[in-house]
């Protein structure tokens, strides 16, 4: 069993205890604390950790409650993974309205982090598709929250990092699909300006867009992936996920092997021309094929840095950011334009602009000071850094990114907290 780590494996996890949640109607008494619900540990930093406190393991809350196959509304317990959900809804002609890059996350985690996907420009965040949720508070109450009922707690819980209580159930509005397959196309670009035009054009006619970027090279180059649900077809078989002993093979640690990987990835994809039909697994979840790919970063782990730069600032901050990170190694740079659809969450990260996600192996001494510099750059541009992926931002940076944090804090359950929250709200 997983030792309740976070995905980056950079911050050690030391909960004082772990309590499994098995039944939504008979939760354990939450009279101690601080508590934090834990799902699948796919948050990268410490937003899913509660060192010194109690983790409430929500994974056993994995039951379906109802599925309205006509209207496409699924009602389930919040520990259900998207993987398990897809197994039920895809054969019935439905898909999750928004999905992150892995299906091994829980519905509750998708809500608490208000996750986004390759269709943000069309569908906004996951929170927009939450019809209702049940929030269990430490005082023993279970509150039904919707955009019309317990409105403030609903808004605080979407993107609320699990701090408002335990999300026990949710109703999600699904998306109808004619086929589980995706018609995918990838296009090479060689500059940020070229990407800018290409991504605007693609967003207009494609449901899903995302770009991969080789940040280790100058001049830069990358691949834009775009796709739509296929109009027909029974779909490819689902792909299994394998768990391999990867710890001895930390290839992402060495610059040479990282460059080699980027080169191979670019060549393999740049060769494919035109539209081709693929299963949803390789399109949405390419990394899920290796259940523990995070171990490729060695025993010290890695940090991810995802930020958003609002359109008012133009492309200049993005260009500067990309040139700054050449000082250290980065692998898997992902680029995407967020659309203007507002998120219902009070603390949600996505907002209109360009978002960049960068992975860095831990170890280079220049890394943390560099990321602090990037924080200032992002804050000056009016942007923000994604808490679900963060393991290192300062309290000062956090408060600049999320000035609404104080009004949000009123909705936090008095017996709930997280390692992340204690770190970013710490003040002398």
């Amino acid at each position: 069993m997983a030792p309740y780590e976070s995905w980056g494996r950079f911050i050690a996890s030391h909960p004082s205890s772990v309590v499994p949640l098995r039944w939504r109607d008979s939760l354990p008494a939450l009279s101690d604390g601080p508590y934090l619900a834990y799902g699948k540990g796919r948050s990268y930093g410490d937003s899913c950790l509660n060192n010194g406190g109690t983790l409430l393991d929500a994974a056993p809350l994995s039951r379906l409650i109802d599925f309205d196959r006509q209207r496409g509304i699924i009602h389930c317990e919040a520990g259900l993974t998207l993987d398990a959900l897809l197994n039920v809804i895809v054969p019935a002609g439905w898909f999750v309205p928004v999905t992150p890059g892995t299906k091994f996350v829980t519905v509750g985690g998708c809500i608490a982090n208000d996750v986004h996907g390759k269709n943000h420009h069309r569908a906004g965040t996951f929170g927009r598709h939450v019809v209702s949720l049940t929030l269990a508070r430490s005082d023993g109450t279970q509150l039904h929250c919707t955009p019309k009922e317990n409105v403030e707690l609903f808004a605080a819980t979407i993107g609320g990092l699990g701090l408002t209580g335990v999300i026990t159930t949710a109703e999600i509005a699904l998306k109808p699909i004619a086929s589980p397959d995706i018609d995918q196309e990838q296009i090479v670009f060689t500059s940020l300006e070229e990407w800018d035009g290409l991504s605007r054009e693609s967003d207009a006619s494609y449901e899903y867009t995302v770009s991969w970027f080789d940040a280790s090279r100058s001049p830069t180059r990358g691949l834009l992936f775009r796709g739509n649900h296929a109009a027909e077809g029974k779909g490819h078989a689902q792909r299994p996920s394998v768990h391999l002993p990867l710890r001895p093979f930390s290839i992402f640690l060495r610059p040479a092997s990282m460059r080699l990987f980027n080169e191979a990835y670019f060549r393999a994809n740049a060769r494919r021309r035109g539209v081709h039909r693929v299963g949803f697994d390789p399109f949405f979840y390419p990394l899920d094929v290796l259940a523990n790919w995070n171990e490729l970063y060695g025993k010290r782990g890695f940090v991810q840095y995802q930020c958003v730069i609002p359109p008012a600032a133009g492309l200049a901050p993005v260009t500067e950011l990309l040139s700054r990170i050449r000082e250290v190694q980065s692998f898997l740079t992902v680029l995407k334009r967020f659309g203007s659809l507002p998120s219902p969450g009070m603390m949600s990260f996505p907002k209109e602009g360009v978002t960049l996600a960068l992975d860095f192996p831990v170890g280079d001494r220049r890394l943390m000071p560099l990321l602090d510099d990037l924080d200032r750059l992002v804050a000056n541009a009016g942007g923000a850094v994604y808490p679900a992926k963060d393991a290192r931002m300062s309290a000062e940076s956090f408060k600049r990114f999320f000035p609404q944090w104080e009004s949000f804090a009123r909705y936090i359950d008095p017996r709930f907290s997280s390692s992340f929250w204690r770190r970013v709200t710490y003040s002398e």
Partner: protein
Amino acid sequence: MMNVAVIGATSGIAEAVARRFAKEGARLFLAARNPVKLRAVADDLRVRGAVEIFVHQIDFADFEAHDGLIAAARERMPTVDVVLIAYGTLPDQKAIDRDPPAQVAAFTLNATSFISIASRFANLLEDQKGGTLAVIGSVAGDRGRRSNYVYGSAKAAVHAWCDGVRGRLERAGAAVVVIKPGWIDTAMTAHLRKGPLFMSAEAAGAAIHAAIIRRERVAYIPSWWRAISFVLKMMPSSILARLSF
């Protein structure tokens, strides 16, 4: 279509196995003590694909209720293709070490009430000349150990009873499958420290489902527990008495 009766349907292992049967479109008869939990399990299995679900609320320690359980299963399903008996309690051995009534109560639920229910289902399978009686035993029943000998002795009784009744039922075309789970991550083991050797309830459910379909006589879950059990069975009592697990 398979007709499957799950006795003790709210146990973590039973629920994981039932999800497999539900996905295949089985008709399910679910029995358990707590009606709220039973309802939660039944709703889940319906969404996962079970074509028809019947629930039956019962306190397994109440021997008077056992006839009613079998009658309800017989009434709801044309035949009983699989009966999975999965209820039980894992007492805290230290807490009951010097508590004779508590030991008897745990043994009564895990062994005596099991025989009361299982023997009724055995008669049903023998009469209908087919079907599978699947029973959740335990590796703890292979050898009495200091850390769980009350639970272990009840499971040993279950194993011996199954070994014997198998000879009777196989002559009628029915099968007896004894599942011996090792370390599975469920509510029953929530208080134990989880090592890397713990198997997820989901993986255990898949393995148990496969063993039932194959009509395996004795299935260790995970399968490598068979080797550990072999060593334990061969171990001289003088050494066993010195172990603390």
